[in-house]
């Protein structure tokens, strides 16, 4: 149960591709049971759920905005504020916890100057925890984007991400 995110969503007037969301949602019209699926789809396209997008969803499903927001805020995978370019998730499953996940998490938080759940001011990094990614045998692990990484030194992990970024540019 996270904190209320209304405030966070109110101040958002982010520019996003409304048309792509509209096209996406047309396929869902009239299928209330697909609400979670629609939210997942929209978030996959935009990276998060802006208020305007949730209003569009409410409109398509013929539900109130509060109903849509109520469902979205129940699930941990939905985000109401934009997230960083690189999402670092520290696995805090049992095996990772026993083998020192907290040390890695604290180290990364100290290194990036943000708390778990926050995004750095330059929008480069988001630091999160994940309950278990099922890589228990390799514990402790960190997930960068979609990739599971075994790098455990915060400084090295962050510099390797930065290097990979520079390489792309």
């Amino acid at each position: 149960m996270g904190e209320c995110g209304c405030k966070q969503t109110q101040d958002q007037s982010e520019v996003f591709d409304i048309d792509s969301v509209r096209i996406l949602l047309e396929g869902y019209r009239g299928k209330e049971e697909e609400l979670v699926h629609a939210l997942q789809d929209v978030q996959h396209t935009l990276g998060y759920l802006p208020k305007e997008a949730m209003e569009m969803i409410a409109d398509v499903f013929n539900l109130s905005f509060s109903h849509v927001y109520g469902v979205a805020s129940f699930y941990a995978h939905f985000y109401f504020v934009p997230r960083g370019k690189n999402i670092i998730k520290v696995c805090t499953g049992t095996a990772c916890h026993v083998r020192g996940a907290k040390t890695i998490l604290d180290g990364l938080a100290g290194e990036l100057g943000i708390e778990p759940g926050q995004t750095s001011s330059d929008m480069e990094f988001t630091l999160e925890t994940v309950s278990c990614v099922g890589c228990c045998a390799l514990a402790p692990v960190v997930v960068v984007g979609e990739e599971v990484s075994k790098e455990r030194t915060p400084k090295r992990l962050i510099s390797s991400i930065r290097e990979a970024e520079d390489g792309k540019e």
Partner: protein
Amino acid sequence: MARNRLKNPNDLGLLREDILNKKALDGHSVKVCCGTGCRASGAEKVVSSLMSEAARAGLDLEVRPTGCQGLCEKGPIVIAEADQTFYNKVDAFDAPKIVDLTLKRGEKIDRLLVQDPITGQRANTEEEISFYAKQERVVLKNCGHINPESIEEYIVAGGYQALAKALSQMTPDEVLSEVKAARLRGRGGAGFDAGVKWEGAKRVKSQIKYIICNGDEGDPGAFMDRSLLEGDPHAVIEGMIIGAYAVGDCHNGYIYARGEYPLAVKNLNIAIGQARELGLLGKDILGSGLDFDIEVKKGAGAFICGESTALMFSIEGKRGMPRPTPPRSVEKGLYGKPTVLNNVETLANIGPIILKGADWFKSIGTEGSPGTKIFALTGRVKNTGLIEVPMGITIREIIYDIGGGIIDDKEFKAAQMGGPSGGCIPKEHLDLHIDFDSLGRVGAMMGSGGLVIMDESDCMIEIARYFLSFTQVESCGKCPPCRIGTFEMLEILTSIVEGKGREGDIERLEEIGVRIQQTALCGLGKSAPNPVLSTIRYFRDEYEAHISKDFCPAGACASLGHYRVIEEECLMCNLCVEACAFDAIIEKRGSLYIDEVYCEKCGACIGVCPTSCIVREFVERPALSGSGKGGGAK
């Protein structure tokens, strides 16, 4: 490749023969484990480099990516199929040697063979590895041996034979009585008899019924459902079709897979697509008149959605909150219709039971809990990974014969079973034969099968606090006992591990814990206090040491004690300085020194120190009278 619909069970047999005849008899083939664990260790690079090396050497080589082999610790794993040579920790750079020496000349590369942690011997094949020797692979028989993206490989391995047998030689009632006779108990953790559940749904009159596979494996430290869905998705699909046939009037099935498991979702969708192509899903399956189809639903990150009623609300597109039962799901479940909900592993057991019969199934395991159980063996053992063992095995056998013993040969302290809803099993119960009933008697539970081994350096209170912090965060908040009770307990536990415990805390924890067990709405709340109550039961002295002496017997609680560098042993390598995110380690007069003001006691320095010269020192403080610190209940 296009696939023709199978119109009857005979077609399935013909297809199988056809595939077997087409299989290249001369070329080489290797299996590469591409389960999540091995992928993290670089299995995909191994696959591509093996392919390019084979092309370079002009070798006709089939590289088969498979699901999880179980021995994730030693991944990526490569098996040469000609003589079953089993290589572990394979790197992409090893590909040329594997191609030139092993595949072309049949020589073994010693360095890549698994070394037995006990004897030090090198094992050539899977059979020789102690990790696999004591296992009995019924459900996992295909995992790691077939390509999960190929229905043909599943059929060659005997897949869909059970379905063909059920549809052509048995009535729905016969299928049901076979499953009932097998006494297959739900592998999701509660151990409810699956046959009885099916019968409950069958008895209710309704035009529409549903069958759901619960793949919302949210327990931290458990990954058996994930490995099954990734490595052998068809086994689960086959179990569901047989279930739909037995229950009757059931035309729609859902597989609810956790959102954190993208590979499982992908492989399931591929498998469902292939099954539809062959007519194993859809209208008139194998000419039997059975219409049944399956859809995958992806979870959105809520642990509570593993609870059956919450899961159904989630599928309906609502907030996943449990409701009071009765009515049970088999009477009023998804969309108010009778619904059977089984765990992934339960469904994967159905095929073998139908094919080999209930008597065969009952010959494995114990009388009260027949069959096998898959555990995710993690924590402080040498071989971590996925194991399938007959019920009734002892914890000692799991740790020392399969797991290869405790890392660094330290002292075993406890096994935590059943994740956040389970309890711990201390040293005195090492020889306990584990099944659903015996675990309940010692205050643990089967749970989904997470098995975390802990040694002398693990603090039991910290483990209990960890599990409770998980359930507290994941509590849906609908019922006050769980919402408020877990919060209260967590407050107390946190204060204990931070050295701020007070006399009477243990009794308070017990009292709140029992209250929550009695009054919470659903299984999550009812079982949330288990880890705490079971650690109090077996390790009360540790609680007392924390509360009355500011002392952590395991030396694990970072907030207790302080950090110091032993100058004589320090190499001045500065790794700790690099690891410290708080700049608390300072060089002073040619030696390193930890500034207590800046030190957050996170332990990062201890983790990287090559000479173990950073120590956390505990000072047993005598209890001060009148400071709120009691002397502990002695």
